[in-house]
């Protein structure tokens, strides 16, 4: 199972706060998350490391897609 969490405007764009997906093999994140994201407006984290929508993900990974922010 891959846990994917969406935060802020990305959750609104996706229409959900996240999704869980069971994979038979590694796939590119963009094959599961179909969203148009500009790189300088969003952050993709895979197991707390920087990734992209082109990164390969596998069962057990934790993914977060979140907006870029600059502090309250």
């Amino acid at each position: 199972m891959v846990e994917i969490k969406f935060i802020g405007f990305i959750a609104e764009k996706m229409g959900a706060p996240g999704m869980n997906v069971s994979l038979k093999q590694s796939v590119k994140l963009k094959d599961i998350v179909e969203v148009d994201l500009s790189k300088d407006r969003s952050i993709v984290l895979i197991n707390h490391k920087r990734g992209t929508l082109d990164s390969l993900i596998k069962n057990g990974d934790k993914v977060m897609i979140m907006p870029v922010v600059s502090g309250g």
Partner: protein
Amino acid sequence: MAGYAGNILRVNLSNGQITKKDISDQMKDKFLGGRGFAVKILWDEVKGVDPLSEGNKIVFATGPLTGLPVPSSGKMVIATKSPLTGGYGDSNIGSRASVHLKKAGYDVLVVEGCSRHPCYLYIEDDKIQILDAKDLWGKDTFKAQDILEQRHGKNTGILLIGPAGEKGVRFANLISQKGRAAGRVGIGAVMGSKNLKAIVLKGSREIPIFDEKKLKAVGKEAWADIKSKENYDIWTRQGTMMMIEWADSISAMPTYNFREGTFKFAKQIDGHSAEKIKIGRQGCPHCNARCGIVVRDAEGGNAELDYENITMLGSNLGIGDLGEAAALNRLADEYGLDTISLGSNLAFLMEASEKGLIDEKLKWGDFNGCKRLIADIVNNRGAGQIVYKGVKKASERLGSESKDWAMQVKGMEISAYTCQALPGMALAYGTSPIGAHHKDAFLPAWEIGDRLSYNKEKVQKVIELQRYRGGWFEALTVCRLLWVELGFGLDWYPKFLKAATGLDFSPENIDELGDRFYALMRAYWVRENDNWGREMDIPPSRWFLEPFTQGELKGTSLDKSKYEQMLSWYYELRGWDENGVPRMETLEKLKLKDVAEELKQNGRN
């Protein structure tokens, strides 16, 4: 020069003297506005004085874009020698007062001396009066705002202190419009020490503009661009409250006095929960992306929320009820207390109670206990006496190992990001020029993809952000939030400045300006602190010694020797020596030769 009102107004409360003077072109060229004007004035005029004495001054400084028809141009910088830290202190505020000050004909107001009786200042163009404030003294900032509005009209800008400032709480702030705050560094206590309750501003003059047609056109285009951004909708619904979910997700949310980075009740206090109890919005003049979220709090009052307030008075105290955290937020605003410092001081007392270091019984999450303590802090009684001067002094009083978890740098309480797993942000806090605050540099969004590394790129990023956020935006005195939160490009600002003033500013000019501010603010700290040393740039031991015990980053803490290495790189890149003191050649290169000479005369360089 167009874009400026052209004058500095000085009001001396000791002798009633009022003077107006042109701002020289040289001052505008070297310091541009806002923070630049403020630090230059404090460097020249406030030397070696007790911050709560007659010799301290408060500088209210606008910038060349303040009050002009461009986005988020309703801010000003307010600076003073801080009674909380003993060093350079400033805070910015978005308020109608900024626009009125400039329209009254003044870029800068300097308040000097000390009144013998409670007073307030009334400034309406050329009419400047020091008026009696006996009837206002003792009143909270909401009631006093109402009285002053009834007396002088709603079309005014009002800055005022509450009972906390009157009574000298070292983290008392300055409030405007029932919830807007120049929150940090204890400006309220300095106003209180001068017996100055409020400043009421009313300006009716036009601000000269270099190319008015162009400025209006580019401003209109800019406002439209802001509204078109994909996250505009959620931003205007939640403001910075959207940060709670974000910070909790990456283990950066201050929780139980910065012990942890995640909070089990985070969802109950986040932006989505705020939307459910929201009753309105507040914001700065000239902003079409207003971010102040007003809610009905647990006691039926109206509170203006943001991320810092609700985490410091919520998760950091173990309070998981948004209405309760909001009520503490409103109480702080009414008393005129900085919400960030207050949250840290209350958490310090909770931890001290837990460890049996004080008699007061106070449990995490104790809302009523917090309310009682806030009143005790303002009145300097009971356990409130312990933290009346902030957590640094409180830890010196309690002794033991309490300094390890007195969450401050340079005497100022850390704002709302815990850094056990964010070394770049820890450096940003360590080197922030007013004490630990995120205003000048915020690294988490940039470093979380490689968060446990300590490298030169992070140090360079801290400096780059300090130049833009701490230099450029603080000089223009415009809001920085539109840039990153909404993706409003940095390339807009030189266009605004050109149309407003005729000045051309290249990225190199912006870097130099920021570096000049940083060198001068640092020189101020060094000159005013006999015990200056690099340890003043190091965060508290908790982040190094106490790893997270919860969350996905359980077991993580900062590495002290690697932090020291980053700090040394920082000094090297800034041209400062190993103690963080700007080198002579650095100051000279930044056209601060006089500063270099003064530091040398004082044996500091």
